[in-house]
């Protein structure tokens, strides 16, 4: 009987130990589920953090490779308290950059001001060049004060506006006068109509000009390099005058004129042209008379002939009178 009972117990299983097995299975399952969940969750969070680290590194790299170069900065004070800042900006980096603010510091007074450039979309693509020109108000600022300026990009980089004013330029300016002529940009114009210049403002960059009574005008790129940083205003007597060594005493004059952007010459009177310090302006000399406009030309009697071109400038520099003669160009007048 005992043997049968034992066999039956082993055959159909003893109830003893069942709960232990179930509990163990539960425990193992619980631990397995929880640890898997936690492992996966931690993995996800770590992946998120790693992604953030990568993004931050990328931002730092972008910030480091952003390369804006600001040169030829000028500070011009047209009136006390107003500082006109100009500078050439170039993006020498490999990513685009947004300029957000321009800071100007008057070091003499320890005063500063800031201008927001975001509204004007001052964005530079790689390789872009752009002229920055802004008027900033600094109470009490005068032209004799020392200024410095910097721009801030959206990535947080600060770029100083570098002033380039060599000793040679200032020395030359002191020697020959405050206005400089761009020799290589000297040009002449022909007429499309009686009062409109053809191919304005490009003209023809040459030192061979048509004569034989053909109406022409001259264009000169002038830069104000006044050491006192004053504005130069040219009056109606400013002109280009040609003298011909082959015909002594023969002079042809081309007086200064106002020209609209389409090349049309203002025929009623002349409005004085002002050139700010470090500013470069194309000035056109076209009129035979200073009082009213009439076309000028080199007469047939002087054609062909080599001639010396002189640039006679008159007006005011700051509050003082101004007069300068720039003699460095020669032309050959040919028969067209």
């Amino acid at each position, binding site marked *: 009987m005992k043997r049968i009972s034992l066999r039956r117990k082993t055959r159909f299983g003893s109830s003893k130990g069942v709960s*232990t097995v179930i509990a163990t299975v539960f425990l193992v399952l619980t631990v397995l589920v929880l640890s898997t969940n*936690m492992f996966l969750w931690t993995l996800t969070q770590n992946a*998120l953090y790693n992604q953030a680290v990568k993004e931050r590194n990328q931002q730092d790299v972008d910030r480091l490779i952003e390369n804006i170069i600001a040169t030829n900065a000028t500070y011009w004070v047209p009136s006390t308290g107003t500082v006109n800042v100009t500078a050439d900006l170039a993006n020498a980096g490999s990513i685009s950059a947004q300029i*957000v*603010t321009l800071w100007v510091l008057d070091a003499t007074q320890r005063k500063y001001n800031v201008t927001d450039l975001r509204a004007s979309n001052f964005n530079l693509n790689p390789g872009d060049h752009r002229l920055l020109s802004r008027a900033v108000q600094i109470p009490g600022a005068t032209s004799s004060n020392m200024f410095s300026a910097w721009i801030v990009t959206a990535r947080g980089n600060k770029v100083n506006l570098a002033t380039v004013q060599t000793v040679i330029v200032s020395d030359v300016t002191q020697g020959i006068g405050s206005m400089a002529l761009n020799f290589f940009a000297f040009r002449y114009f022909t007429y499309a109509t009686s009062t409109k210049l053809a191919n304005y403002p490009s003209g023809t960059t040459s030192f061979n000009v048509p004569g034989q009574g053909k109406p022409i005008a001259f264009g000169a790129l002038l830069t104000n390099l006044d050491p006192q940083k004053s504005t130069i205003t040219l009056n109606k007597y400013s002109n280009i005058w040609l003298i011909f060594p082959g015909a002594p005493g023969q002079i042809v004059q081309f007086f200064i004129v106002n020209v609209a952007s389409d090349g049309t010459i203002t025929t009623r009177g002349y409005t004085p042209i002002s050139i700010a310090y470090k500013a470069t302006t194309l000035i056109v000399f076209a009129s035979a008379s200073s009082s009213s406009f009439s076309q000028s030309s080199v007469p047939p009697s002087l054609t062909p002939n080599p001639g010396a071109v002189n640039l006679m400038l008159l007006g005011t520099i700051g509050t003082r009178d101004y007069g300068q003669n720039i003699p460095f160009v020669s032309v050959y007048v040919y028969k067209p």
Partner: protein
Amino acid sequence: MRVEGSAAIFGKRYRGALNKMRIRKISKMIFNKKAVSLVASAVILTGVAISLGFVVLFWGQSMSSDYARNYGQITDAEIAKLKEKLTAEYVFYNRTLQSVRIFLLNSGAVNDTEIQGVFVRNSTWSWVTSSPPSLKSFSGSLISDQDLDIGEEGYVDVVLSPIALTADRLYFVRIVTGRGSIFEADFIA
């Protein structure tokens, strides 16, 4: 006759004993408590084990979700802190008012950057704001939410008076954000 009689008696007795045995066996089967308690205890133990298993499972689940929530919050905070970047556009020391004005730009990749405190120091001396300074926009108006979003600019004034900084000497400002990031800039007093 005698033999027949004794055999009959024996048979009768045997049958009686057999019946008694059967009755005893049946009643034993019916009234045997030992087997019932064994089953009941097995059922109870199994039930308790399953119940405990579920309790442990739910407890573990709640613990792990707490942990996950905390871990997630910490990770989010760290990520936000990592994305924070403040640029000091200009630091100006007003010698008359004896105060430092710090112009800031949020050049990072996260919004809601608050200024918790500002340290002003040099190599031998240090000073810290006692409460978070007020953030103002560049136009001078108070920033309503007192934080800088991405690309937003603002400034804080730190009044050091009666402490006067030494003129033309280099000082540093350390800006501590609400998330715990630290940014430094220098200035000449």
